[in-house]
């Protein structure tokens, strides 16, 4: 196979894989984008002289945690939400009036006074509109609608995973890392003080100061 053929294969593969599934592409490229961005941010903090060492102990693990949690939550949360929305459309649970008419004509749905209903005993789990023999009649309407629903679900999923779940989890992770590193850093001074759990960094530092500034018993009058 020569280079021209390989190049054509590459183009055609991209077209067949993502031409009809933009949300899938957004998920894969999104994950890769977050990974690359986090790697650069870790370097940015490490080389920033204006950030004190103590803050770097929080910010670097925060960034690593941010990247790792972002990638995992993007894959788990965003993709599951996207697949859920996608399946709602492909199983005929969610549709436009034109798709409903098509499903009614194909004897999958029944039109009633209060809207459309599913036939009694109908098994959604095995049904996919795309597998219907007369799918060509509705393919344009269906593909446009499904792509739109997929992209909306993917965007909402991204907002939930990247902007809500990730910052909460990465802060928890970075706080624990900072405490461990600080405890290790100040080991000779803090000696037997227990690993601080459930207290703020301010309280912890105050406790450390109090422990070592306490007057000894022999000095009591």
């Amino acid at each position, binding site marked *: 196979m020569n280079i021209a053929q390989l190049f054509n294969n590459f*183009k*055609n593969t*991209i*077209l067949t894989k*993502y*031409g*009809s599934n*933009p949300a899938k*592409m*957004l998920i894969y*490229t999104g994950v*890769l*984008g977050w990974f*690359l*961005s986090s*790697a*650069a*941010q870790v*370097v940015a903090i490490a080389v*920033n002289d*204006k*950030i004190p060492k*103590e*803050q770097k102990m*929080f*910010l670097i693990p925060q960034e690593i945690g941010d990247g790792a949690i972002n990638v995992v939550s993007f894959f788990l949360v965003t993709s599951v939400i996207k*697949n859920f929305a996608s*399946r709602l459309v492909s199983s*005929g*649970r*969610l*549709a436009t*009036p034109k798709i409903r008419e098509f499903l009614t004509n194909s004897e999958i*749905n029944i039109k009633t006074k209060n*809207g*459309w*209903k*599913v036939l009694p005993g109908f098994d*959604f*789990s095995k049904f996919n509109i795309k597998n219907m023999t007369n799918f060509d009649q509705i393919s344009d309407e269906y*593909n*446009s*609608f499904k*792509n*739109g*629903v997929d*992209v*909306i679900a*993917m*965007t909402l999923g991204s*907002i939930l995973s990247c*902007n*809500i779940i990730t*910052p909460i989890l990465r*802060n928890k992770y970075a*706080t624990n890392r900072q405490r461990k590193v600080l405890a290790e850093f100040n080991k000779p001074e803090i000696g037997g003080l227990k690993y601080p759990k459930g207290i*703020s*960094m*301010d309280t912890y*530092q105050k406790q450390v100061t109090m422990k070592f500034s306490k007057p000894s018993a022999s000095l009591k009058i």
Partner: protein
Amino acid sequence: MASISSIRNFSFLSAYDKFSCKITRVALDAVGSREKLPTISNPKTVKCIDWIGKNLSSAENRLILGASALLSQPFIDASNKDVDAKTRRYSICRTVAKIIAGTLTGFTIRKLCIKSIDAFTKLPSEIKPDMKFKNLRKLLTPTIKFSAEELAQYKNTLGTILALGIMVFTNFLIDAPLTKALTNLFAGKGDAK
């Protein structure tokens, strides 16, 4: 031998797809098979959903994520009482700086790359006599049959892949220094107060 061949055949993406489908199935089962089927009957809503599917590329997606990140992440950092006040302030400054830098570069590079790909993915009917680089205009056009919508998504995908390649460098050359400069700017302003 069997285990070696099974490792070779293991694909992360296909395993992940199976996992995700299983979760989806469980979620759909939990929702149950409702007798009455939800139908989006407002033509404007249907049109809007179609438009989003056709026109929302990774660039716009990055912009939406950036805008929503500005509305949520600084507040999440501000409410993190597990760290001291100074660390919390640095964390907020850096989060805001990172969102601004990441969104600006991410959106711009993605948009420019998608535009560049579009310039070299022309159909024969789109090539005009006064166009420059006429021979290269079909360079990225697929050689198999496609619809107009598929071609638009193909351009978005190829543009996004190109953008990711470029962002390997710009993350270090633009994103990271810009984040650093903005963090120092915001943190410095806080210090002055």
